[in-house]
């Protein structure tokens, strides 16, 4: 994402935070910014903890977006995207979608992993009832959009379609399950690409975990 666009979107998010949660939350408060850094700027061998990330709350979003805009912190972008998802606030949705569309050219491995995590994060955001996040995931499953970035030999459109299937599942929403049911029918009739089947099955398995053990059990 270009610096100017990043600044504009940061301002938009800040304004939205002011409107939604009050003037004190326009920036991440310093103690919370430190907590964000402590969580995100380390590598979590078996994944960032849902409970820790969710506990940060929407007030952490400005600092998370700062990290996502800092190329020097690229190794931590995937943590940032996952944390933006785990916060489960619609305020991060547009920024994540912009991130997907504004990277350009051949990206480096850390950026690639972060970009590929966006559908997962959108699914987490959709769990709060964000219909636009769900709609974005449905569009990704259709696999018609072209992205302006690439990574080695990866078919980015197919990869994001697969990830979006899992994103729909982790949302846990009834309307997302309906989309997955339709996808299953399309797979049965050959009207959907077969590469989505293992991801649909993975999504179903995660939904079972959600129903049985709750959200955190899907992720940690």
């Amino acid at each position, binding site marked *: 994402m270009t610096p100017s666009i990043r600044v504009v979107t940061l301002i938009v998010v800040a304004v939205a935070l002011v409107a939604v949660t009050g003037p004190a939350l326009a920036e991440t408060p310093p103690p919370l910014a430190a907590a964000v850094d402590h969580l995100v700027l380390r590598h979590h061998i078996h*994944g960032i903890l849902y409970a820790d990330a969710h506990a940060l709350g929407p007030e952490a979003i400005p600092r998370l977006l700062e990290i996502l805009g800092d190329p020097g912190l690229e190794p931590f972008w995937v943590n940032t995207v996952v944390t933006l998802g785990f916060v489960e606030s619609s305020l991060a949705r547009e920024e994540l979608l912009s991130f997907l569309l504004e990277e350009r050219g051949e990206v480096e491995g850390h950026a690639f992993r972060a970009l590929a995590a966006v559908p997962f994060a959108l699914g987490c955001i959709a769990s709060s009832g964000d219909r636009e996040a769900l709609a974005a995931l449905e569009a990704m499953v259709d696999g018609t959009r072209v992205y302006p970035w690439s990574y080695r030999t990866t078919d980015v459109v197919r990869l994001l379609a697969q990830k979006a299937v899992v994103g729909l599942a982790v949302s846990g929403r009834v309307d997302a399950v309906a989309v997955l049911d339709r996808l299953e029918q399309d797979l049965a009739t050959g009207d959907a690409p077969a590469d989505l089947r*293992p991801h649909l099955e993975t999504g179903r398995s995660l939904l079972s975990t959600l129903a049985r053990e709750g959200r955190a059990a899907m992720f940690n």
Partner: protein
Amino acid sequence: MKAHVFLLLWLAAVVTPGLAQTGFTVSRHVDTAFTEAEFDLAMEDVNFRLQTVNDRCVDLACSASFVRSGAMGVFGTSGDGLDFIDTPEELSTVFDQDNRAKVVTAVDYCGGIYNPSIIGCGRCGADGYIVESWSSGDVYVHEYGHNVNVYNCAHATWCEWSIMDDDTDLTNDSVDDYECTGFGGSPLPQLCGSESGNVEGKQVVTCDVVVPVGGQLRLLAGSQVQVLSGLTITADGTFSGDSSGIPAFLYSAAPGTPKLRILDGGYLVVTGGGQIRFD
């Protein structure tokens, strides 16, 4: 001259059992950019961290050492998606590939959980672990720790820099006795030196290696002596003797007998009529 030869033989005799070396067979996915040199560098880094004492937690010098065993293999076919693990089937397929360490581009799924920030996944009590290609040596050894059931396949909670902690800044370096023995090593007892107080905020233990005027302390290629915390001379380092002491951390796998610790099968030569003296 006799003394010189004796020193060489004596060192060769005691150095050999010093390190407990474990070989990792390695494969990478065909679509994952990763080289043997990167793997070897990661092992060299973690070996140093294991074998030396850090000042971040209570730590011990451990004789565990890891190297690549054989040439790196390649698995998968281009475009098969196995370089980006995000389903149980892909995880299982990659685990079933030859060789213990499998290096891929990304791991999003491990052991029933889905989380794109995962960077490694190891079987509990069984061979096989998977790491992302940019990972550091401590992540490889962490996953190996799961293979050999260190902490019963759980994580260390005693120190955030522990190899078996679930977080890393890619320089995790602390091990306790349980981790060290689990990795196949044993604690290297310290043979000389004592706590010499706080130097630039770090607690250090020092011994003095004195190289007299006219003598030279020469480390041959492949050998390694920790001279100061964080500083290692790994190949052909030469000190010209000036009678000044060189602070050194000295450990040996043979308790009770003062010996220099030379790593990686190297040996140490004192030339020019020099000597090494322990004060």
